[in-house]
């Protein structure tokens, strides 16, 4: 690695900074509004086709949702202007930590470590078992 390589690398890093700044300035992210129950169900049905949705909780800020499907919890969380989805055992979702209106769900996946959902209460009393 010679000096020219480091100069090229530094210039490239500066260019990356400028381009990210322009992308942020442009505000041309996907216009995905917050999830409501209808949108959340549609997204859950697409991500988990054929799964029965026993109950759905949508984050109060619309940035995610959690559904009970038999013994599984189906989780959707916002990532930038998109969403990621994972399924975990229902018992794992029930035992997730809930503090100050935030449910922190451990998704046990290196590519999706956790999802944080704003909910009024957790766990739901009638489905806690």
């Amino acid at each position, binding site marked *: 690695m010679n000096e020219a*390589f480091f100069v090229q690398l530094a210039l490239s890093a500066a260019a990356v900074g400028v381009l990210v700044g322009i*992308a942020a300035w442009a505000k041309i992210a996907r216009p*995905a509004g917050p999830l409501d129950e209808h949108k959340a169900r549609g997204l859950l*049905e*697409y991500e988990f086709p054929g799964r029965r949705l026993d109950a759905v909780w949508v984050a109060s800020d619309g940035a995610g949702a959690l559904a009970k499907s038999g013994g599984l919890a189906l989780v959707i969380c916002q*990532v930038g*202007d998109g969403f990621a989805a994972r399924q975990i055992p229902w018992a794992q979702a029930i035992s997730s930590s809930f503090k100050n209106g935030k449910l922190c769900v451990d998704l046990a996946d290196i590519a*999706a470590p956790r999802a944080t959902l704003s909910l009024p209460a957790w766990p739901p009393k009638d489905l806690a078992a």
Partner: protein
Amino acid sequence: MKAEFDPVTLATPFFILSIILEIVLARMGKAQARYEAKDTAVSLGMGLGSTVAGVFTAGLIFAATVWVYEHRLFTIPMTAIWAWVAIFLLEDLTYYVFHRVSHERRFWWASHVNHHSSQHYNLSTALRQTWTGGVAGTWLLWLPLAWLGFPPAMIAIQKGISLVYQYWIHTEAIRRLPRWFEAVFNTPSHHRVHHARNPLYLDKNYAGILIIWDRMFGTFQPELDEEPCRYGLVKNMATFNILRVAFHEWAGIVQDVVRHPRHALGYIFGPPGWSHDGSRETSAMIKARAAEAPAQPAGAIREAA
């Protein structure tokens, strides 16, 4: 391994200017493009990191290529036009094989997955390049070209030309090109299909420059207006942590092998999504399930997202 004439280095200013142009045109409403700042930062950061990572294996790859070239079958002149036509076709076929293996076997997918990890499809996505390609050893696939007698510099130049060609097709700004062009060449439309996670589009359109290889080997899928592309991975990433983007599938392989050592070969060399107990889904399983399920109207999916 860099030739004195390096198409990628020469094209770098074009990369930067074209990204700015795509963003500005989209901002003005003159072109179809979506950019999200964190996603863009990861894509460009991966591109920058790949140039650094490449330095660590460049010496090995160069030495191996030169060694093979010293044991070549023929001596092919770099100045002959027929030689450039031949390497154009052979390198592009090699790329098809590399790309197909990189999608259909987990060990190589671990290196390639990051290129598909964005939920966006724009020019910055093209630069979301691997950091672990040298380790994955897919460069071995190009050694037969040196063995045939193509000079290492010639191979490097053609690889660079292919990489630069594949840059501009990462865009939604260009819908369809003339029919003759779509029939022969890889285009934005064909490559959008390749980056889509819709079951119908999984494991299709592996082409580098020429789409003819997909047509010949049965992996071609045209983009359908009634099936809009949804980009990213079957299981999208829920983080912008660049280290997780670069290494998550490698870490997943290690995790699976440690948990199920008796099934190590399957977890390393099986198709992505393979599991010993059938608890996960491969592309083939997803496609089969989707083919059986009633079609979901595209409008409903768009609305939900």
